[in-house]
């Protein structure tokens, strides 16, 4: 058998089956029978049957035939698509799928069940099987199409039909064109052709034909001038076969159309006899593609695509190298070429992308089946199906998601009775939702089931010995929730065959993390659970993808890092090193704002020697220190401690160093490199096999200057250094829609339980300072920051809030755009938080408060920095205001929160403020009072008329 052909048939049929499944489910859920959809199901099954016959796959043919017959009844309106019928059809679809995959399926049983749905008289027989010779057939005359289709309706009168076997030379058959098609059509006029076989013999082409007809034998004989013996009445077709339709039919019972190579081979162009088979034939002649009806798509092997991708990747690299070497600015043809290459690469990469909808749709069926099995009622919804993800990621995500969906049906959604008791609708809801957020795709699976009971999780984890009781007490609710991802955890008391074996959730987590994703849980006891998966758009390591990379240098060697992994780049002056790089337990750490980051020395990680530039000679010398904090020693840590007192001043040896803060699965750590050389668009190539086992790299690339550099693999570094990264506690998923007005705020706790927020964009510096460094002069406090002495103010001095308790360390916040430097002393627990619009604005902003918001279970007060600053230094502000007379400002801002915020800043004497809600209003106002306003402050994104218009 032609393997390629079989492969193609398999791929096509599986796709068609998926389609059938979708249609069936849709029909079932919509309740009604949509003729077009039924037709499509029928056609899909039909073409599978045809193809299977072509490839001699008898089981497939049998099963497809029965499924087809059943659908035919539905199509004709003899039957309606009841759940029972849908069940049987779905079972048949599964059976067909199994057979296609080369697995076994109980064809006999499936057929019997399909038949059970059809009124007895209409039950089909298996007789029509097209089997043109694969090697020689160019013409396909599908006898089975006609026979199968025509037979089903022709029920009652069939008893009078006689069956004839005709064997005659082709030349002798009068009045018929000498091709299989012609003969077939000719005989179809008088009866039903069961099989047609043309074979070469000494006497020319011999036609073997089986015909079923109501006509007497002599009339047929005279019609075609058949000699006696050439027309033999065969046994009447066994009607009994309908009762046992799954019995394998003898070969003679199959319609065979075979055209030997010699006669003029014509393609089918004559008008086909019957409308249903015409449709089928059109399909056949277009190559039998079931998918052909689905628009202009074609199937391409992924290997070919990958090769194409690699070739285009090389083109991009070569182009980049040329760009760095020559000046092509004047050369239009090169510009065109360059643009084409970019476009081409983009579209090739695009081919890798897949709609996540295809993944979502896969679950519609399991959810339904599972729900039926468990006696639950579940409604399945999918949102965001058009979000695109890299194919490899979708594939890798399929299993984890499958597990989660099954879990949701099995564990989360309650039985209908329980749901009713709890005042919910009987029908549970499972929703898959995909959307973009900050360069990643979030896929959420939400259910409105029972939610996860923290207490049960906790006690279960203790029972199972996953954690100790003391430890469990100390854990935060979030940590408790994440215990469900520990290996060997399952809360369902009885395990079912569906889920609950205690394996899975940990596998889900590992699998998702393997593709660079993360998972988060939000649950509300009694109301439901959301599992949110954060997936990268593409895997950075995907070969031949074009990514933006940061080129770093360490120990004289260059490496690239994918820019997506880089969170921040910090230059560290030798002078500052001591202040920021500290040692903890023998390891270097860096203090970044409120976080302590692990530092990985890239040289050590890659077993390279550390080097430094000698400050006097400029030579590159080996650095023998074991740690940065250790300035003298090559020896043990104890020794380093002994010499610690000698460390004064900055590091004289090392040049500026650069700390690259990497974001790995939402946790941060830093790698220390000698320098950042630049940022380049690079094409990732996979590492040659000989070097693939080397840890820490995920590929290599060729830079614009033609040099080959290795690409660092963040996950590899983490693994190699054995870093145990913990999720940042402040991280949280922005569940549901990310509001466009989300704003980053610094939140902090002044007195315990009292939270405040300041917009991040209004802050120039946040620093932790020691209490002893605060100098007091009278009642005022000052802090020496580099060259400037800045006055400090405390919230409690100007707001009616509980004073901050005396501690050893404070955080200092320097507001931006104040007339004179000023520091605000704030308390602990600094975090960056995304705030949405839901801010309750207070009308009176004079008191230094813009409003309050509810965030993560706390009431957070939004501090008006400028009101505070004004109170602290009235003279500075007053001086500024004197400069201007009365200024009239028009503020156009649709967002109430921002309008409030901005107006609060402008509410100083000398400014008259007019606030309008959109561009149109602003425009109208301007038309009326053209000369009135001195300034216009406008939001760009606004309803009706935007800022530009």
């Amino acid at each position: 058998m032609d393997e390629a052909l079989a492969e193609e048939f398999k791929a096509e049929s599986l796709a068609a089956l998926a389609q059938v499944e979708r249609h069936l489910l849709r029909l079932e859920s919509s309740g009604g029978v949509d003729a077009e959809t039924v037709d499509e199901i029928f056609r899909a099954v039909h073409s599978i049957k045809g193809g299977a016959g072509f490839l001699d796959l008898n089981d497939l043919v049998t099963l497809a035939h029965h499924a087809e017959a059943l659908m035919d009844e539905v199509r004709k309106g003899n039957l309606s698509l009841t759940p029972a019928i849908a069940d049987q059809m779905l079972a048949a679809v599964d059976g067909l799928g199994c057979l296609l995959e080369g697995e076994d399926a109980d064809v006999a049983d499936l057929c019997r069940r399909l038949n059970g749905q059809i009124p007895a008289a209409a039950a089909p027989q298996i007789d029509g099987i097209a089997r043109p010779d694969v090697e020689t057939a160019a013409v396909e005359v599908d006898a089975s199409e006609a026979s199968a289709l025509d037979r089903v309706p022709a029920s009652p009168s069939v008893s009078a039909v006689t069956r004839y076997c005709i064997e005659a030379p082709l030349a002798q058959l009068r009045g018929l064109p000498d091709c299989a098609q012609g003969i077939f059509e000719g005989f179809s006029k008088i009866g039903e052709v069961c099989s047609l076989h043309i074979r070469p013999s000494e006497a020319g082409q011999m036609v073997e034909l089986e015909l079923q007809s109501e006509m007497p034998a002599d009339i047929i004989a005279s019609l075609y001038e058949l000699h006696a013996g050439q027309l033999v009445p065969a046994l009447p077709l066994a009607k009994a076969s309908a009762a046992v339709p799954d019995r394998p039919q003898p070969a003679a019972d199959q319609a065979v159309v075979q055209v030997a190579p010699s006669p003029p081979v014509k393609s089918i162009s004559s008008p086909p006899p019957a409308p249903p088979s015409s449709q089928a034939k059109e399909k056949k002649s277009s190559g039998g593609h079931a998918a052909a009806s689905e628009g202009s798509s074609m199937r391409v092997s992924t290997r070919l695509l990958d090769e194409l991708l690699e070739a285009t990747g090389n083109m991009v690299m070569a182009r980049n190298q040329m760009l760095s070497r020559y000046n092509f600015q004047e050369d239009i043809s090169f510009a065109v070429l360059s643009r084409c290459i970019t476009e081409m690469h983009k579209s090739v990469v695009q081919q890798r992308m897949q709609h996540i909808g295809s993944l979502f749709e896969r679950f519609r069926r399991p959810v339904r089946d599972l729900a039926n099995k468990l006696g639950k009622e579940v409604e399945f919804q999918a949102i965001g199906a058009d979000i695109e993800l890299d194919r490899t990621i979708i594939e890798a995500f399929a299993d984890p998601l499958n597990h989660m969906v099954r879990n949701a049906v099995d564990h989360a959604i309650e039985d209908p009775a329980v749901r009713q008791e709890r005042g919910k609708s009987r029908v549970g809801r499972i929703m898959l939702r995909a959307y973009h957020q900050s360069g990643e795709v979030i896929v959420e699976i939400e259910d409105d089931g029972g939610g996860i009971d923290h207490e049960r999780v906790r006690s279960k984890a203790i029972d199972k010995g996953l954690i100790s009781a003391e430890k469990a007490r100390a854990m935060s609710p979030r940590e408790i929730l994440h215990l469900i991802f520990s290996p060997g955890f399952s809360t369902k008391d009885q395990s079912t065959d569906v889920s609950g074996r205690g394996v899975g959730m940990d596998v889900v987590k590992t699998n998702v993390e393997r593709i660079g994703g993360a998972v988060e849980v939000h649950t509300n006891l009694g109301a439901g659970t959301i599992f949110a998966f954060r997936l990268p758009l593409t895997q950075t390591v995907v070969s031949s993808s074009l990514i933006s990379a940061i080129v770093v240098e360490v120990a004289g060697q260059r490496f690239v890092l994918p820019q997506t992994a880089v969170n921040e780049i910090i230059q560290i002056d030798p002078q500052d090193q001591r202040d920021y790089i500290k040692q903890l337990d023998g390891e270097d750490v860096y203090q970044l704002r409120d976080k302590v980051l692990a530092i990985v020395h890239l040289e050590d990680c890659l077993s390279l020697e550390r080097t430094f530039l000698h400050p006097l000679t400029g030579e590159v010398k080996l650095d023998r220190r074991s740690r940065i904090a250790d300035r003298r020693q090559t020896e043990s840590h104890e020794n380093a401690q002994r010499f610690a007192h000698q460390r004064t001043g900055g590091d004289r040896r090392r040049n500026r160093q650069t700390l690259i803060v990497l974001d790995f699965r939402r946790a941060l750590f830093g790698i220390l490199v000698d320098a950042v050389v630049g940022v380049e668009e690079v094409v990732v190539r996979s590492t040659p096999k000989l070097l693939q086992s080397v840890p820490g790299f995920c590929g290599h690339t060729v830079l614009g200057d033609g040099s080959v550099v290795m690409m660092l693999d963040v996950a590899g570094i983490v693994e190699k250094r054995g870093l145990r990264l913990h999720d940042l506690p402040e991280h949280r998923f922005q569940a549901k829609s990310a509001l466009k007005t989300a704003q980053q705020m610094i939140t902090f706790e002044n007195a315990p339980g009292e939270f405040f927020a300041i917009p991040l964009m209004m802050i120039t510096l946040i620093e932790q300072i020691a209490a002893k460094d605060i100098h007091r002069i009278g009642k005022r406090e000052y802090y020496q920051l580099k060259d400037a002495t800045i006055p400090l103010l405390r919230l409690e001095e100007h707001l009616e809030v509980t004073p901050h308790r005396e501690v050893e360390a404070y955080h200092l916040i320097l507001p931006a755009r104040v007339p004179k430097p000023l520091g605000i002393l704030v308390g602990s627990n600094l975090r960056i938080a995304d705030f949405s619009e839901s801010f309750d604005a207070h009308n009176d902003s004079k008191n230094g408060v813009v409003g309050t918001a509810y965030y993560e279970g706390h009431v957070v007060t939004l501090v008006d920095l400028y009101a505070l600053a004004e109170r602290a230094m009235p003279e500075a502000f007053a001086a500024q205001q004197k400069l201007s007379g009365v200024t009239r400002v028009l503020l156009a801002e649709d967002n109430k929160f921002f309008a409030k915020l901005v107006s609060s800043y402008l509410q100083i004497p000398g400014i008259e403020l007019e606030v309008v809600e959109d561009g149109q209003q602003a425009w109208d106002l301007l038309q009326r009072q053209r000369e009135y306003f001195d300034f216009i402050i406008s939001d760009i994104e606004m309803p009706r008329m935007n800022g530009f218009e």
Partner: protein
Amino acid sequence: MNADICGFMVNGYRYGVPVFSVEEIVRPLPITPVPGSDRRLAGIISLRGVSAAVIDLRLCLADRGEESDHSPSTGTLNYLDISRIMKIGREDHGCRLMLMEDRFHLCQEAAELNIQAFDEPVALLVDSMDRVHRVRSTVRHPPPANLSHDFITAVYELEDGFLSEISVLNILNDLLPAGGGEQS
């Protein structure tokens, strides 16, 4: 039957590989070392859009005393190795790189001889090139028993001395971590 053997010098000895497995012989290119790899791998090169790992034959075929230092499993590279490798291709003008063909691009002759080459091109770093020797099978001898590694598959007796035929495949198998060879 005659065979064409492409000869080259490594560590002062003459070795050779079947000429049809050689894609091209190039002057040394800058080799990018890959920290952490087996030290017999000099690094990675890119030649006209084709990337290849470079095998330093001088380290592979080093005498036994030195060979005992090779430990492909640990794969750590010390300072001396780095400096040495980084010099390759910049200063050692005597050496040559041979790009070995991958299986896909092997010529018809090689395919007929059923040469199982490699899944991707590899480059060999040698001291200098010799020439192509046409050798008769009558002068082909099995390798002497006292050779410590199985990289040498045959020894040819030529007019001006011996030539050892090496099997790049055996070297590759030795370099690939266990199980790595079965991928793809």
